[in-house]
């Protein structure tokens, strides 16, 4: 049997990134400030995690303006959706194995 730990996604092992993806699973798109509020993070810390997810192409970014304020929205990419699912399945397997 393959080791379930090897199926965990290295990028998503960080729980903030996992939480960002879980928000984007249930919301079609989400903006920077709302993410910041939901996760209770500072601008800098959220931006770092966003960059990591962006680098993996797990999330898509749309930049626009609401009046004069810049409004950056994030969406989940298909790749991100699959990575999330695979990671959750791996978590599930690990927890079940440890409960036995």
């Amino acid at each position: 049997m393959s080791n379930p730990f090897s199926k965990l996604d290295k990028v998503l092992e960080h729980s903030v990134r996992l939480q960002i993806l879980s928000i984007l699973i249930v919301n079609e798109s989400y903006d920077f400030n709302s993410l910041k509020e939901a996760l209770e993070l500072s601008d800098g810390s959220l931006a770092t995690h966003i960059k990591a997810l962006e680098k993996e192409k797990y999330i898509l970014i749309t930049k626009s303006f609401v009046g004069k304020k810049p409004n950056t929205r994030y969406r989940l990419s298909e790749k991100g959706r699959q990575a999330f699912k695979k990671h959750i399945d791996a978590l599930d397997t690990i927890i079940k194995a440890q409960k036995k």
Partner: protein
Amino acid sequence: MPNESKYEADIASIRNMMERTSKFISLSGLSGVLAGVYALVGAGFVYFMVHFPRSPLSYRIETIQPFDTVMKLMGVALAVLVASIGTGLWLSSKKAKKAGVKIWSASSKSMLINLAVPIVSGGIFILILLMNGHYGVVAPACLVFYGLGLVNASPNFYDEIRYLGYSEICLGLVSAALPGYGLLFWSLGFGVLHIIYGSLMFRKYDR
């Protein structure tokens, strides 16, 4: 190797984030119960104003009423609506404050839009019905459009709201077939159903 609690905490935080960011979890069950009570008080008021001394269970055949009576009925309905929304906002903001979450968030915005599309179109439709004197189908139309609004916004609420929506739609359709029982069905839909679902939600989420 990390221990299992880290993975279980991850799963728990995912569930928590999904719920907190997509659902309007501050909705207070108690405000549903009170909205139901206001509706019953309003319906009782209308009964004594228009139908008394006939039995509230008797089927009315005539529908046309003087226009000033219609205006009074609208006034009562408006008072019930304003009191219910006011109570809902007050109790929900209290609940949100207690839970340390903001009442005005991305999820409450999307909830309002989802709710407003069927309800505002229904409201305009009902005003047109009133202007043309189709009084008999006004109460059923209120129930059906309100139910559609709830079903449409149900992804933003706890599950009970979707069932409340379905119940309102069914009640509205039955009521449309029996227009002489309009006030009775209106009281069932806006009064009794709100009290039932409100107390269910209060027991499940508010305590």
